[in-house]
């Protein structure tokens, strides 16, 4: 009885995995097709990859995307960490809750609304659409994620740690850099990482606030895909898939390692 139901369950799970991964492998498979379509596989070729690597325009777009992601994640992390420390310092429950609700507005808002409202904002403020508008919006929507990643760590830290440091004569700056920041470091890294992935993944907000001259990878893929199938995109997605998987493996490795380390420390 138990056995039978579990084999059905395994079949169901297998089916879900096939559905989830089939489209991705479909893309990868046809990136090696010399036929030029996503339906008839004619022969093996690496032409699409060659073409991709020779495309300097695309290379620049990839660089733009990376620069935006790294810069916005960095600035968002600094602002978010300071904000989280600030939120904790408010002792009144109501103030804290208000700040947290404001913090979460950009997380729950649909991308279209963030994009549209930022477009209005930048136009009103006279900021030209392009690199800076994209960077500012990426910083803006990454800050709340960093706060949400850091705040639980901060809350879990016993205040007596900081009090002890102060009693022993540490200055505010010392307390921050020698006690608080090292303690919440895992949260900071998680926040930075999340901000990075949010920025790399974002399409809708960028689509609204990017002008004509500037483009990120997502926006570029969208405009290419609207023109129909071209196997360059398949080659590109294969490379991105491989990079993502490497990313996940590294992250998983670090997470499990730091997880056991943290557990050991706490014992």
């Amino acid at each position, binding site marked *: 009885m138990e056995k039978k139901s579990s084999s059905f369950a395994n079949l169901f799970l297998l089916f879900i995995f096939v559905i989830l991964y089939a489209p991705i492998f479909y893309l990868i498979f046809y990136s090696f097709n010399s036929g030029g379509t*996503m339906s008839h596989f004619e022969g093996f070729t690496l032409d699409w990859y060659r073409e991709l690597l020779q495309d300097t325009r695309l290379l620049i777009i990839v660089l733009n995307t990376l620069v935006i992601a790294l810069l916005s994640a960095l600035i968002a992390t600094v602002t978010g960490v300071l904000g989280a420390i600030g939120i904790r310092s408010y002792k009144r429950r109501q103030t804290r809750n208000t700040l947290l609700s*404001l913090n979460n507005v950009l997380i729950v808002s649909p*991308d279209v609304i963030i994009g549209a409202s930022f477009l*209005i*904002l930048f136009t009103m403020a006279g900021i030209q659409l392009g690199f800076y508008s994209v960077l500012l919006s990426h910083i803006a929507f990454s800050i709340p994620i960093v706060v949400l990643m850091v705040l639980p760590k901060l809350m879990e830290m016993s205040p007596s740690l900081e009090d002890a440091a102060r009693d022993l004569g540490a200055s505010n700056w010392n307390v921050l850099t020698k006690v608080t920041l090292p303690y919440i470091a895992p949260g900071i890294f998680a926040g930075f990482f999340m901000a990075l992935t949010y920025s790399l993944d974002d399409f809708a907000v960028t689509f*609204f606030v990017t002008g004509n001259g500037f483009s990120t990878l997502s926006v570029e893929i969208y405009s290419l*895909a609207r023109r129909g199938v071209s196997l360059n*995109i398949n080659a590109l997605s294969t490379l991105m898939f491989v990079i993502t998987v490497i990313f996940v493996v590294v992250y998983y490795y670090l997470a499990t390692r730091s997880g056991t380390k943290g557990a050991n420390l706490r014992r």
Partner: protein
Amino acid sequence: MQNKTFRHLFMLPYALWIILFVIAPILLVVYFSFFDIHGNFSLTNYKNFFTATYLQMTLNSFWYAFLITVISLLVAYPTAYILTRTRHKQLWLLLIIVPSWINLLLKAYAFIGIFGTHGAANQFLEWVGIGSRQLLFTDFSFVFVAVYIFIPFMILPIFNALDKLNPSLLYAASDLGASKWTTFRRVIFPLTLDGVKSGCQVVFIPALSLFMLTRLIAGNRVITLGTAIEQQFLVTQNWGMGATIAVFLIIIMVGFMALTSIRRRGV
């Protein structure tokens, strides 16, 4: 005293962010919704919204978002349930999450190939004997791809809720003679309702506002609130109308959040 100034210094960038990127954009959207296409202050946009075209579109958008949420839930719940029962559940969960890290546009692009006239889906239909048909640019393909994209986001909170469930409750239920179905209906489901609700939140609201999918997969056949906003802002350049639709989307969003969190307190 000294602490206070330190704190204010901390909060400065974060407070600036709240004012500039959280409060100001919302106010600007509301402000812009009161201007017609010629820049005159009027209520025309609101009057337009309450005409048959826009109400129909809102209803349609709701219907699709509802369908997408329900189907995702029906697929995700059993998947999450089976996942919690597997041996290396964290690893399997990670494998479910990996596809959600692949750029959304690439996944949509894959389906352009799969659902294309000579794509894999039609080849399968031919092979089964149904014969090929138009799949791309239909309601079906839109719902299918949207469900595909949202499933990992639905699985994750349900998995967490199921994982936290105390197994002794299930033993108690079966000891007291409850059938499997009764156990599910009276014990498991009510206790994981929070997970289901947060899953619905992360699916329903984006489903109302996704515009790239409707463009790429549904070929403008399906117009969601998100598509309409994008259309007004970036194509028609009628920011006032776009802002008005955005205001309604925000109201719907707040209502939906309130609905799913008030009940949470009741449970």
